[in-house]
């Protein structure tokens, strides 16, 4: 019993420590982004573009495919449910809302955390193990400025962009199925979808995606920087990073949906 309570205590302290570390990374990254140029150590714009390319552009094919598939599934389920009330034609309304407000940001967040969040942890963790981070520090290059800040900016820009792209692909997927099933043209489907949506719906998805971006980056980076124990340590940290960021994304999504949908 005492052991158990001690254990809970230790884990709580460790959790709070990690949270503190993650937020100090965030604060330090902002500091470098704002004051780096003044200190003559700017965050490299070229690196930001490189990261954006890697996080965002190369993820477009897989995101298109998954979001279209989700769109099709949602359309199938929605038409099935609505047919119970004889209201199949209302599918457009439901589909546009649920893709833009919920599914697109969630799918994109989960996918990017599996794809790039894990890579961030593995990359930083390997660098830590190879003393590359130490090497940067002794050269006088702050690792947060050099490695963390560009990833943070790239992720916070690219995740919303991918989410908007995912919105379109999800609606397209749903539209293709609906049109075939209900004898509509895709043009009609898109124009009524766009009529139903208001800016606030799209914004809800975008706000969520920015929060997810911060979650993926902070969890990816802090697990990477705190790697110890060689190759096994890097593997463990990578797994932990993906599991934690997906869990936090889903939890944050729930909280945000609650507050933003009222």
């Amino acid at each position: 019993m005492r052991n158990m309570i001690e254990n809970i205590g230790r884990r709580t302290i460790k959790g709070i420590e990690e949270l503190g570390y993650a937020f100090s990374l965030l604060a330090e990254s902002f500091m470098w982004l704002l004051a780096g140029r003044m200190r003559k150590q700017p965050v490299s714009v070229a690196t930001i573009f490189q990261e954006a390319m890697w996080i965002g552009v190369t993820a477009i094919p897989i995101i298109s495919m998954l979001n279209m598939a989700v769109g099709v599934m949602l359309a199938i389920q929605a038409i099935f449910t609505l047919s119970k009330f004889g209201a199949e034609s209302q599918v457009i309304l439901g589909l546009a809302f649920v893709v833009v407000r919920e599914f697109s940001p969630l799918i994109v967040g989960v996918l990017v955390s599996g794809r790039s969040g894990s890579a961030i942890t593995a990359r930083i963790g390997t660098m830590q193990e190879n003393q590359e981070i130490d090497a940067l520090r002794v050269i006088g290059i702050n690792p947060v400025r050099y490695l963390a800040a560009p990833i943070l900016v790239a992720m916070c820009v690219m995740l919303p962009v991918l989410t908007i792209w995912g919105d379109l692909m999800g609606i397209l997927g749903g539209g293709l199925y609906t049109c075939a099933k209900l004898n509509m043209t895709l043009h009609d489907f898109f124009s009524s979808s766009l009529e139903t949506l208001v800016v606030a719906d799209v914004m809800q998805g975008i706000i969520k995606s920015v929060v997810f971006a911060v979650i993926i980056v902070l969890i990816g980076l802090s697990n990477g920087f705190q790697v110890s124990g060689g190759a096994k340590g890097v593997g463990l940290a990578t797994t932990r990073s993906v599991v934690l960021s997906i869990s936090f994304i889903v939890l944050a999504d729930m909280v945000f949906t609650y507050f933003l949908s009222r």
Partner: protein
Amino acid sequence: MSAQIHRRPVIEIEHLDARYGERQVLTDICLTIYEGEIMVIMGGSGSGKTTLLRHTLGLEQPASGTIRILGRDITAADAKTLYELRTKMGVAFQAGALLGSMTVAENVELPLREHTHLNESTIRIMSRMKLELVNLGGFEDLMPAELSGGMLKRAALARAVVMDPKLLFVDEPSSGLDPVVAAEIDQLILRLRNAMKMTILIVTHDLASAFMIADRIAILDNGRIVMTGGVDAIRASTDRRIQDLLNRRPREATVDAEAYLGRLTGDNP
């Protein structure tokens, strides 16, 4: 020794204590390194020499004590002072620690790009010069993963000296290398000192290499400095721990029966 007294101290370590958690790794280290000398810190595995190096580089905070580099106390220095000091220091890590995502040339150019506003061709020429110096001319476009252990160490040395630092730190320059390559690296370090008048701190467990290049040697054992002195003084020392190290004698472990049993059964007596 008398010549050194008039020289300017470059690194002054005073009463340094270091701990990892509960474990005391370094105890009351006092060491002064003078301008232009090659100081070798020698000790067996687990003697604390790497920890001492990491503290001297400002990568770890000591439990107590001060470390002054070029007159500035790095244990209490702010980020700006530390940044300025680091532009005057070069470090070659044991396994090179080259950034795996960049070519050899980009690695060597990195400090110049970060700290200077030189134009592209000057940066290129300076980095090529340093690569030629370590006999790596022609290898600039290879990735670190394509280099051998000895080449990695030499590339790391090139990166460490590309800014012409006042101070050079080298971690285990000869470990994992065949004797010929190890001797080449020793020669290279001597050349760097003679050509660029650097102060060099080397951490190693390689006796032959230490005697070859050192002006002075500090022997570290169990986190304490046993002796500091010139090569001849170290050789002539009658201290048993030093003689063990010099003659490659295994340590005579005195067995405390009770503690031994305690370790086996997991009970602390």
